[in-house]
Structure formats: structure tokens, C-alpha cells
């Protein structure tokens, strides 16, 4: 998903109206960076995987 800066800033204002105005452009940049990085997970086949209700490290190796 691609999102331009002005759209990102509008979204931030909708989600959290308490964000100091000076932070909004920085957050917009961070959001765009996250969206770009997250694309790496979009192509994974996770079809059989539910999110674990409780994360446990054990495996039966």
C-alpha cells in the first residue's frame, strides 16, 4: 500500500487528534516507512496460521 504525505497526515489527525502538530509530518514519514516495510509480509502464505492466543516458545524438537 502506497500513501502520500498529505494523506498520511490526514489519517494521523483522524486516529489521534492529541498528537502535537509538529509531530505529524514525522509520523507521516514513519507511517510510510512502515507501510513499505510491511509489504514483505503481505506475500507470505499464512493461510493455516491463526495468531496464537498465547505466544509460547516451546517446540517439540
Amino acid at each position, binding site marked *: 500500500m502506497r500513501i502520500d*504525505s498529505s494523506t498520511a497526515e490526514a*489519517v*494521523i489527525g483522524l*486516529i*489521534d487528534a*492529541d*498528537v*502535537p502538530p509538529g*509531530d505529524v*509530518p*514525522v*509520523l*507521516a*514519514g*514513519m*507511517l510510510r*516507512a*512502515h507501510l513499505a*516495510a*510491511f509489504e*514483505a*509480509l503481505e506475500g*507470505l502464505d*499464512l493461510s493455516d*496460521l*491463526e*495468531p*496464537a492466543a*498465547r*505466544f*509460547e*516458545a*516451546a*517446540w517439540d*524438537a
Partner: protein
Amino acid sequence: MHELARMTIAAASRGLERRSFSALELLDAVLARVEETEPRLHAYARVTADAARREAAAADREISVGRRRGPLHGIPVAVKDLCYTAGVATEAGSRAMAGFVPSFDATVVRRLREAGAVIVGKTVTHEFAYGQNIPVTRNPWHETMYPGGSSVGSGVAVAVGSAMGAIGTDTGGSIRVPASIMGIVGLKPTFGRVSRHGVLPLSWSLDHVGPLTRTVEDCAIMLGAIAGHDPLDPMSSATPVPDYRAGLEEGVEGLRLGVDRDYYYGPGVDPEVAALVRDAERVLAAAGAEIVPVVIPELAHATVIGMTLMQPEASAAHRERLRRRLADYEDGTRLMLEFGNLIPAAHYVTAQRARRWFQAAIRDAFRRERLDALLAPSLPIPTMPREESVGDFLGGTEGRVDLSGLIKHGIVANVAGLPALSVPCGLAAGRLPVGLQIVGRPFAEATVLRIGRAHEVRTDWVAVRDAALMGKSR
């Protein structure tokens, strides 16, 4: 410096048992070291000398009547200022926590006390273990260089002998990073192995608590005291706690140690770091381990999975306090916490699903290659200049979350929940320590400690560090 402060926990414990010196004398030596180093290094947020003297005197009384509790009895240790300490301020490096005094001890602190340890004080942390600030703590190896974080005070205190061991927390590498940079030993245990009850959360599904020490044996001693089920931590495991010292000297003959050169030795890895960690591989191979090249392509997703989990969890953990105390947070922390609110819920859930896929991929690689552990550099670089250790998104309109440089190697074990040990394996640029990371199977802390110990006894990096930071070899 006083010779007693130079001792390992194991050696000091033997001395206390034989009554060669008292717990009070041992504490005084460590407090003298605190006085000697703190004006320059600032490892402690607060030193609780009076309470520590009372605890040491109580330890002496018990030991004198044959009621020795174990190897930590009378040993001076420090605790990261993220852990609740009853009656002692716990401020997490933040103005937003100023003056907060918990009414109870974190389970990890309670267990240290039950083992007879003497709490010297609370160590400096980056704000809430999340801050992007330059820490007040200085690097004793090179004062212009970043000393590690977020358990920065714990790392420095242990390295210079102002504590004999310390507790840290690790959400993306925050025990192993300072351990590597200080040239000491740091262990992030298996998820669920050590209780987080009473430790201020950063990310519930990634947070771990563990020890930083000067030797692997000391690490085994501390882990033995703090590990175990705690009904107050819903993620705590009931898996039995073994004697972590029992097999330490068994060596690595026949162990299979995987190395993924694609992930851990890619672009950005300092050539000296790579060379020193490869030297460590050769040390272990000469001791009888088999070095097994592996490729686990899924590792490349560790940072995006981990950050997509960490950021919303951190924002949820701070949601109420951030609204009340916004102006009391540092700029970098505030921005990170504001940002976590913006990650879509579907992304968070997708990252939780991807984490199971990631964990299964590592499990399958261990099974396929019959691995006992993975070996890797603890960090891709030795460290960085202090002024470069701040988040680089401040003040720019094109901000970015670029923590991956320091957390790429560490966060694998947080996302998978696996035990990971950092042990010193050399000096880059003549005076910057480098760490070897050993990542094991779930609850196989004894194996990673055994591997670390096999490396430690075949090298002289402990003595080199002590000579550099404490005046001369032990």
C-alpha cells in the same frame, strides 16, 4: 581498586562460604568501586548503599550460623531501573515516572533477595527501555562511543566492577547489545523462563528479563536464581529449571552449530566483527563442534515482524500515561509511542501470524540440520559514536524507523522466543569489544551456556577486558 570487587560471583561465593571475607567487606569493595567510577560513568540511576549494607549484614549473620542460601548469598548485584523495588524509586529513565515508589518487588528482584543477593542500586536505562536519547551513561572503553542499551547501566556497572552481576531486560536485544559493547556476558532467556511481573512492560510478547555478568558461570548462577514459574506473569512457563552450572564444563564435542551467513554476514556487517566471530567459530570447531552452514531465508523478516509487534504493544502499554504526561516524555520516545497507534490492527495480527511462521521456520532448520544452536555476531558493528545513537527521525519530514541496524541480529531471538547468549570474542579497532551470539532451542539455556563456556575457557577475552577496565588481570 579493591581486589574483592574484581572477583567473579563464583569466586566471591566460594570466599564467602569459606569465610575468607564477609559479605559486608565484599559490598564495601563494590561500593568503593561505585564511588571510583560513578562520577565519570553514571551507570546507576540510584545507589542504595544503606539498604545494601543492611542486607549484607543480614547475609553475614545467616552465613555465620550455617544458613547459607546458595551461590548468590551475600553477592552485590544491580537491577535495571525498569524493575519494581519495594520502597525504592523506580523511574525507568523518565520524567513521567519521577518519584514513583513501588509497594512491592518485581518477581525477579524478590527472587534475587530470596537467594540472598545484596541489591546495590538501580541502573540507568533508556527511557522506558524505548527511548531514542543519548544515555547519560558513558562507555568505559571509549567515552565518545555509545555504551549500548537499553540495559546500559547494567552493562557498564558489571564491566567495571561496580556490580558483580546485574539484571537487564531485552525486547529487541537490550541485554545482548550492552553485553557485546561492554565485552561481558548477557543472556536473554527463553520467553517465559524468567518472570516479568513487576517489570515495566515495553512489549508484552517480546519482553524478556535476564542477567548480565562477567563470566558464563556467573550467568548460570544468576539465571538459576531468577528462573522459574511465576503465576503472576501470565506468560511464565512451568518448564522445570535445571542446574545451569551442572554441565558447563562438558564442552562442545559433537555439537552442531549452525551459521547463516546470508542473514548475519550481509551488507553492513563490519569486516572486523565478521572476522572475530569467525575466529570464535574456529575456536569451537577446534573444541570438537561441527560448524554447519545453514540458510534460513525467513530470518530476513525478523525486524518487520518484531517492530510491527513491538510498536503497537508499546503504545498500548503507555496509552494512559502518555495522555496524562505527554510533556514529560522525551521527544524520541513520544514519537515512537505516537507512531505505534498508527499501525493498523490487521498488520499487528498479521505479524502475530507471521511470527508463528517464523518460529516454525527456525524450528524446521534446527530439525533438518540437527542443530544444537546458531552462532552469529551479537551486533553487526562494534558500536557507534554517541551522537549517532539517537533516532534519526527527529526533526525531519521524511522520518523513518531505522532501528534495524542495531536490532537486526538480536530481534530474531525475541520474535522466536529462543534463548540467546552474548559472550565476548575479541576487540575491533584495538579497543571495541565484539560479541559472539549463541541462539539455542527453547529452554536450552544450559546448552548455550555450555557453548559460551567452551569458548570462554579457550580464549583470554575475560582477562583482556578485566585488564582494560579494572586495572589488571584477575
